[in-house]
């Protein structure tokens, strides 16, 4: 069997395409100083890895995955060191990279139809911290967050939990200032509606517990 290149859609390149990819070529060609970049990234890591990890964890609900993605984000930051124009923008720049890593992963997961962001843990037992976290995050808010579109979720998390405002938020989301604010506005409304739906579903499930099964979500029907 032969693929017909004229009709087959290939994904560009071997590495999942990101907007940052072209810089890799420059990095490889040694345009910038590797030691300088390495030292700078190490410093950035020390300052910001906790919040970057927290952001990715909150986006994906999976501790191990968030760790992988944090690593990925800092490697990308290293490779794209030359795209950072001013050191004072480093934090927003890091968030922008992490945000792209997250969107990329989410896109992949949609392709294979994994259950979204429900935080399947990778075999290992969740830590006590995560259990506490889950307890806090669990329930309606977590499910509602998981249901709103990922860009809106990102906007909400970055604004409310990571203190990005104005131009920083726009830079992290990779959109204009006006678009970032509009996204946030839509996100608040989406979350409100999603939370309301969750509460309704809770009530309905409560009622159904007496009456019968059925929750028109076939894949989740009890086995």
């Amino acid at each position, binding site marked *: *069997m*032969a*693929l017909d290149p004229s009709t*087959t*859609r*290939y*994904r560009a390149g*071997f590495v999942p395409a990101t907007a940052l990819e072209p810089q890799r070529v420059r990095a490889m060609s040694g345009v910038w100083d590797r030691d*300088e*970049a*390495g030292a700078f*990234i*190490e410093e950035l*890591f020390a300052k910001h*890895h*906790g919040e970057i990890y*927290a952001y990715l964890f909150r986006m994906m609900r999976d501790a*191990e995955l*968030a*760790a992988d993605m*944090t*690593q*990925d984000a800092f*490697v990308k930051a*290293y*490779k794209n060191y030359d795209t950072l124009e001013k050191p004072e923008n480093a934090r927003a720049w890091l968030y922008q990279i992490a945000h792209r890593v997250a969107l990329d992963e989410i896109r*992949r997961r*949609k*392709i*294979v*139809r*994994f*259950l979204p962001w*429900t*935080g*399947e843990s*990778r*075999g290992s037992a969740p830590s006590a*911290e*995560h259990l*506490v*976290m889950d307890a*806090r*995050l669990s329930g309606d*808010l977590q499910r509602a967050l998981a249901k709103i579109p990922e860009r809106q979720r990102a906007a*909400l998390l970055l604004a*409310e939990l990571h203190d990005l405002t104005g131009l920083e938020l726009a830079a992290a989301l990779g959109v204009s200032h*006006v678009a970032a*604010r509009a996204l946030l*506005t*839509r996100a*608040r*409304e989406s979350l*409100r509606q999603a*939370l*309301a739906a969750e509460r309704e579903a809770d009530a309905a499930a409560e009622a159904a517990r007496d009456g019968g099964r059925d929750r028109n979500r*076939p*894949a989740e*029907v009890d*086995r």
Partner: protein
Amino acid sequence: MTRASRLRRRTERWPDSHERARARLAERLDGPLELEESTWLDEHMTGCASCAAVAAAYAADRQALRGLRDQPPEPPRDLWARTAAAIEAEGGSSAQKRDASVRRSLPLGAFAGVMVVVVMVGVGLLTANLPLPSGGVKGEESPTVGIEGGASPVASIPTIANATPIAVDPEAVGYVSNDRPGTVYSLSVDEVCAAGDKADCAVREGTQLGTLFTEAPKTILASPTKHKAVAIANTAAGTDEVMVVDLPEATERPRPTRTPAASASAAPTPTPAAPTTTPAASASSKVSGSPEPTPSASAATPTPTASIASIEPSATPSATAGLIAIASGIEVVGESAAFSPDGTWFAFTARAADEPKGADVYAWRVGSAKAVRVTDDGASYFASWSDNDMIVSRPTDPSAAKSDPASVRVDPANGNERDAGDGWRPAVDPTGKRAIVWVGTLKVADDGSGWVPDKGRLELRSWSRDGAGRSQGSERDRVVTDSAPRDFDVRWDETGEWVAVWVADRDDTLVGRLTLFHVDSEKDRLERVDGAPVDVRALPGFSMGDGRLAWATPRGQGGEGSRIQIAAWSKTDVGIVESNPGEDPVVIR
């Protein structure tokens, strides 16, 4: 007011004033409104109770969100070590090197026990040639497709209206699941759904074929004829047993098995197959010329599945008709076990459980009583078959902690070896022209359990009888991974045009990432086709061939079972379907 905001406002058409108010309320949380809007909103709010409720909800939601700050998730302690190592692997700065050695590695839980390998003979199993109604018309009932517990009548066309399924050659994938412990199921697929489409293929439900085990084995590999399989199971003694089993034949299943009642009645006992007739028929068509022994043993048993079903793998399988233990008291290593292309041999890597020796390669000639150990240096790993020779890899300096690898070509019949280059565990394609191979160095695993990649790359290379050569493709078109995997598994389809690569996770070899590549044979490069799985999380042990890649997903959150996911391709497209969640499904490879 700026020109831009005038323009913007003019284009805003609010369906009603409440909607406008909601938007402004949300907006106001993130900064002051323009005076005009602010005034309008205040006026509106004075007479709008529902808007006040929305405002309260926004404020409450914000508070709830901010409440999440109190418990920031804690990143793993080795995150910098991992990141620094990854940066270093990018050709990065020496500043990172001091931490690079801190990478954590966990014990190989999967390989800790001793395994028994059992070969099953008799019932005719599964994977690829699970029969679909020949000349089956789309829409004709398919024996294997069901949704939602089989409650609704299902044709092979997904019932979701907006699905845009991709038709693929009808083939089935077999798996063993503990839904009914140790039972073999088949999952027929003749169409899949494009990735990226919102379209949703119906979730598939497997069809029971028969119960072979008391519980699902760790690994099960079908022979090229699909009539027999080798199963590897962990016994009560903690060792592995390798067994040969017969696979149940899907063709023998009564066609209209879509109703739950039918499958329920079929469940406890093996399927109502008529083993005396069909096996013969199918044997003549499929096994003619096959070197596999004719199932005289199983033929003597009227219902081979029944006798097999009663066998405990942890008991003494060799004593039982239909189940032949070809190796026991060993510990099977890694995921590379495979039948030879002609189906006459089966090779795997194992450690003897009763002596402190390392890994050696075992070969079983189909039809013989026992697998035979072919190497004795305690550091040999079966890589793949090339023609009908085994490719075996080992460190050049097994007494050191780090080493370069070397590969040899071994004739399974006499153990004669000849050099096959310096790659580690080359997975040779069916044309013998290419291989995916670890090019780099090896080290002893941190837990001392054996040799694993250290520094280098898993990549596509040209292949010849002398071993791996150069590839013309650029680096980015041939490298699968440049981080040293604890284990990997590479399987080509029978055309050599598609290859699937599973790479174990860094800390846990029981889970990994699976990617399907198309191989551009002219340019010698790996291509990721739109819609094909890329780095999807998968349990070890996938099946590849007949236009399909099937794997099991890790168990989901909240106790949801694993799913079988199947990627299938036509000449132009790749798509995916999946099964309902089940208990510990193991794909028959």
